[in-house]
Structure formats: C-alpha cells, structure tokens
C-alpha cells in the first residue's frame, strides 16, 4: 500500500472513527454458550465478544497454547476469562474504548469491511484471522494499528499472566519467600 499522506491519514482515521461509532451501536450477538463459564461471571465481555476473543486468541497465541484438543479448550476458556479480568481492571475510559473496538469487530458490516472477516467469528478460519491481524498490525491507518496493539496486549496479558503458560517459556514462577 502506498504511504498515506498525513491529510489522507486523518481522513481515513475519521472514517475509521465512524466505523467505530457504528460498531458501538451494534447489539451483542446471541449467545452460543461456548464460553458460558459456570465458575465465573463475565463483567466486561458479552457472549459475542467472547467468540471473537476466542477466535482471535487462538491465532494470536498459536504455538503457545497446548496442542491436545481438550487441554486447548481448557486454555481457551482461561484466555477468554483472563481478557475479561484484564478489561475489568482498566479505567472506565479505556474500557469504553475497548467496548467500541469489540463492537466494531462484532457487528457484521464493520467486521467485514474493517477486519475482512466475512463469516461469524466462530466460523472464521485461522488464516483469515491471521491475515486480519497482519493487515491491522502493519496498516498505515493508526486506528487499525492501535486496534491490533490492544488485541495483542489483552491476549498476551491474559495468557502470560496465567501460570499455565510459564513452563513453556522457561519461567519457574515466583520464588518461595
């Protein structure tokens, strides 16, 4: 993609903001129940958010999660729950920004045009999700880069704050005191 001029960037950025606002109006999708976690009450994520966090998380954290299917499933529930806890600990203004980002990614029209994901998140293929992340990561539009960075931070914080991730990276955990 050609380098955008600053002026173009501002215009695209404003268009992006409109997309965000549109997405923010979207209502949460219907619950599928995959991440209805009986031991935990979600405070920040709607059921639709949980689907997209799981779909993006599986790709963002590929190679770090257990490969065994059952263990992978358990880890994904922990990842989604960890993202909820992480968002819940953020100041109200940041929570609302993340709410707008998730709204945009949930609402089918903005999901398709901004993220290039044409199916539901539940049915999105790993390569489509990976392409979306790579596009936002290197986008010339700051809004998309910031969206990628937010997803990266939330998912990394969720998984690597979890003791289940530590053995793989050679971290022994805190010493005994």
């Amino acid at each position, binding site marked *: 993609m050609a380098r955008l001029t600053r002026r173009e960037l501002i215009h695209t950025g404003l268009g992006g903001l409109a997309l965000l606002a549109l997405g923010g109006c979207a209502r949460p999708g219907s619950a599928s129940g995959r991440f209805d976690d009986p031991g935990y009450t979600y405070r920040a994520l709607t059921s639709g958010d949980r689907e997209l966090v799981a779909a993006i998380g599986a*790709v*963002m*954290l*590929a*190679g*770090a999660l257990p490969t065994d299917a059952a263990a992978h499933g358990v880890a994904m529930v922990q990842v989604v729950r*960890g993202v909820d*806890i*992480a968002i*819940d*600990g*953020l*100041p*109200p*203004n*940041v929570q609302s920004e993340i709410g707008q980002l998730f709204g945009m990614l949930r609402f089918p029209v903005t999901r398709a045009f901004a993220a290039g994901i044409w199916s539901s998140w539940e049915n999105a293929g790993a390569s489509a999700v*990976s392409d979306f*992340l790579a596009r936002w*990561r*290197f986008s010339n539009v*700051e809004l998309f*880069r*910031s969206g*990628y*960075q937010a997803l*990266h*931070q939330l998912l*990394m*914080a969720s*998984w*690597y*704050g*979890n003791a289940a*991730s*530590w053995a*793989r*990276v*050679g*971290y022994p955990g*805190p*010493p*005994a*005191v």
Partner: protein
Amino acid sequence: MTTAIPDPIVEGLRRGWHVIDASAIDHDVNLEADAVIVGTGAGGGMTAEILSEAGLRVVMIEEGPLRSSSDFHMLEREAYPSLYQGSAARQTKDRGITILQGRNVGGSTTVNWTSSFRTPPETLAYWRDRYGLATYTPEFLAPWFELVERRLSIHPWDVSPNENNAVLRRGAQKLGIPTAVIPRNVKGCWNLGYCGLGCPTNAKQSMLVTTIPAALDRGAVLVHHARAEHFTLSGDDVSGLVCSALEASDQRNRPYQITVKARAYVAAGGAINTPALLLRSHMPNAHRRLGLRTFLHPVVLSAALMPEPVDGFSGAPQSIYSDHFLYTQPIDGPIGYKLEVPPIHPLLAAVTMTGFGTTGSARLAGLANTQVIIALMRDGFTFASQGGAVELRHDHTPQLDYEITPYVWDGMRRALLTMAEIQFAAGAKTVMPLHESAVPYRSWSEAKAAIAELPMEIMRCRVVSAHVMGGCAMGNDEHGAVIAGNGRHHSAGNLYVFDGSMFPTSLGVNPQLSIYAIVARNANELAASLTGRPLGRRIV
C-alpha cells in the same frame, strides 16, 4: 507464604493508625489539618514525614489502595491492576507510548526498580541558565541528597549483577563504552528480582515502608481510595480540597466526598495527575504553561537471544547502567540516552515483545535466554523536544498528548543501533529491536543495515516510559513557570507542588532520588514557614 516477614502496615494498623478506606465509608468525611498532601509517592511520602516530624497535623490523600508486603505475591496478574495506573497500561493520547506509573499508597516507589541517581550537574546547569533556578547547584543540593540517601539506605549495589545486567556491562566493555553500578534504595535485599510487583520482603526502602509509617506513627491521617477532584479557591489562595470516594473494584466514584481544610495544600500526585488536579481546579494560569512540557524519557528496547540462560526475571532488576551516550554530544545537541536493562517477567515481556502466532510464540519460548537493553531518551533540552501536554478528557480524567518528534526518533534509531552492537559484542546469537517490522538479526552488520531502514513511527516501534516529569515547571515567574524553585505556586500562596511534575526538563536519570532530595529541601522550608521555626534539615 510460609515464613512471617513483618509487615509494617499490618502492624501499624493494629497499633491504631488513623487510616480511612474511602471505598468503605458510608458518609461524607470532613477533615482539618495544617497540611493536606495529595498523593503518597516519592514527593508526598517525603513531605508527610518532614511535616509530621515538625509537629504539624498532616492528612494524606491517595486514590490507589493500601497494599503491603503480605499482599505482594510476586504475581504480575495481581500487581499490575492493583498497584499501577491503568493496570500498567496507561498510554499517551495517540497510544504511541505505554507508561508505567504507580497508583497505590507509596505511589511509584512501591513498584519502581530501586535505581537512585542524583540529579546530573548538567541538568541543574541547564535549569539555572534557562529557568532562573539560581540555587539549584550540586553544592546546594548535596546535603539534601546525603540526608535522603541515608534515610533510604541508598548505596551502590554491592552484589554481582544478574546476567541481564552483566550482558550490558560485558558488551559495553568490549566496545570501550564505560558502565557503572547503580545505587539502590534497599536494606537487606534478597536479590529476588520482583521490585516491580511490590517488594515482598520490605527490603526496598519505598515510601510505603519508610516515611509513610513514620508519619502515621506521629498521628498523620491517611485516606486511600480517595481521588482529589479539585481545590476550591478563595481569592488567590486555596481554601479547601474536595475528594471523591472510589469503589475499590472499578475505581468509579462513590456518592461520598472527603473534604479537607488546611493551612497548606501540597499537590504530589505525580506528573500527569498533579497538572490535571490544578487544571480541574481552574488555577490561575496566566502564561498557559500548566500541563505543558511534560517529559517521559521515552524508551526503546532491544531483545537479544543469548547462548546461555539469562533468567532476567531473577535478581536485582537494575544494577548496571551507561551514561556514555548522554555525553557524546552537548545537552542541547542531538538527543542523548541512558542505557539500562528492565526485569523480564512473562506478562510484561509478552505484551512488550512483537509478533503473534507461531512466530511470536517462538520468540517468547526463548524468554529465559532473552536479554533486553533499554535506552531512555533525555527529552526536553531543545526547541525540538518540548514534551507533551496534559489535558482533561470529558470525564475530567487526564491524558497526556505527547508527540514523538523527528528529533527524538533520531535518537531512538541511534539507540537501537547502539544496543544491538552491545548485545552482539556480548555474544548474542540474534538481536531484535522491538519494532513490528524488525526480525531477529544474526549479525551486527545485518542488524545495522536493517535498523537504518526501520520506519520510526508510533505503534510500529515499541515505545514505553516509566518516568513522567514536568507539567508544573518550577522557575521564575517571568519565565512562565508554574511554581517557584521552593515549590510554591506562583499565584496561590498556600499551594505547593512537591512531586515529579516540578521539573522543567527531564532529568536524564531515574527520577526518584531527585524528587526525594528536592522535596526534602522544599518541605523543610514549608515546615519552617508553618511552624515559625527556622529552616532545619529534618528527617529522622
């Protein structure tokens, strides 16, 4: 926890300290004092000790929680949300820089990495020349530095550096770049490496375990989970402080207020929050300087994969530094930078490292063998580096609008080159600048060529900060400063700014010791004026 490490906070509460948890009150609270201090970090803690020691009645206001060693489990997922501003993810307005800043009783001193440097003479000379701060000489400040260094057991780290620090020293040595040992504020340090998550053994001489307990023992009052909303004004002077009680869980306002009337009002909420408090209070701001010139020492990072384990999560996080690149050019020439290393714990490492999926995971799989150097840009010494501006959002919370100028980016690119060269000299197998377009490079020549081409832009190049300074610059009124050199506000005669927001430029060193010493001096002057007794040098 199996052993019983004495917890000075738990013990003090048992002794009957006057501590109010505003997240649990069910009515408004009205307090009176000689001095009310907003914020309990380096500036607020030091002030509380000095004023209470002078026999003055002190109230401390803190928006964060009261946590102590019994709560410090060395777990990132617990520490960041409970002890840091914005869960350790506070960002500048354009999201280009992530800021680590404390938010708890003890402020950033509870979670900093203990590095303690005196204000560099070059920085003081610049302040004297440009801001009319005639008394700010190394000689004038020396006794105050000595005083607080003694109080907080500040001394060069006399244990071997951990491998993460040793790599910096080894690589620099190979290239003829001088390094030195960092002085730390620790007493009986266990060398665990978890300073950033709250010291579990109370070895770190933070405000939480030193000055604040001392003030509370002398009858000072601490109100935590209370956010200072604004000062009320009467004529030019401040006539009161209004605070909101906060929910412990989500930091939202509760329907109760804490109001404090005092003879003197001390703003010590740290840079960003102190200018915001003054903005919310509509303080006279004739020169329109309030909140401006806020500096960050913006940091870029370089990660090396070493052939042997580094275990950067273990051992004193910062013990070796190099100031070489602060002095290869004049202070107002191309931007200089200080070299240090950070602790490497999995959560913070994972959010800071670049990449995702199998590539990103493979990089993190090498965590135990990963060595990281950081370069801190000395911002604020030329027209091309004016820092950022603190603004208020619609909900009156602050944000920092800080644009990284081409002048600063230039230094960042040079620093990425420097760090890669040092890491290869120390034997790194690969070096990866933390930049989305960078990959692990296998040789210095490969890295050198690639770094020269990296697009230096926000949210491509990783930029972080742990040092927020300025926004209420001290200096002569005619220079447009917000406060005088003694910390007193230029229009409100009973308002004082005693924290990192007083600095007219960045420091070029980790800020805690500069805050302690300058505040110790200024708080003693305030104590003298409130008591009518001559200025002494009072700290226990």
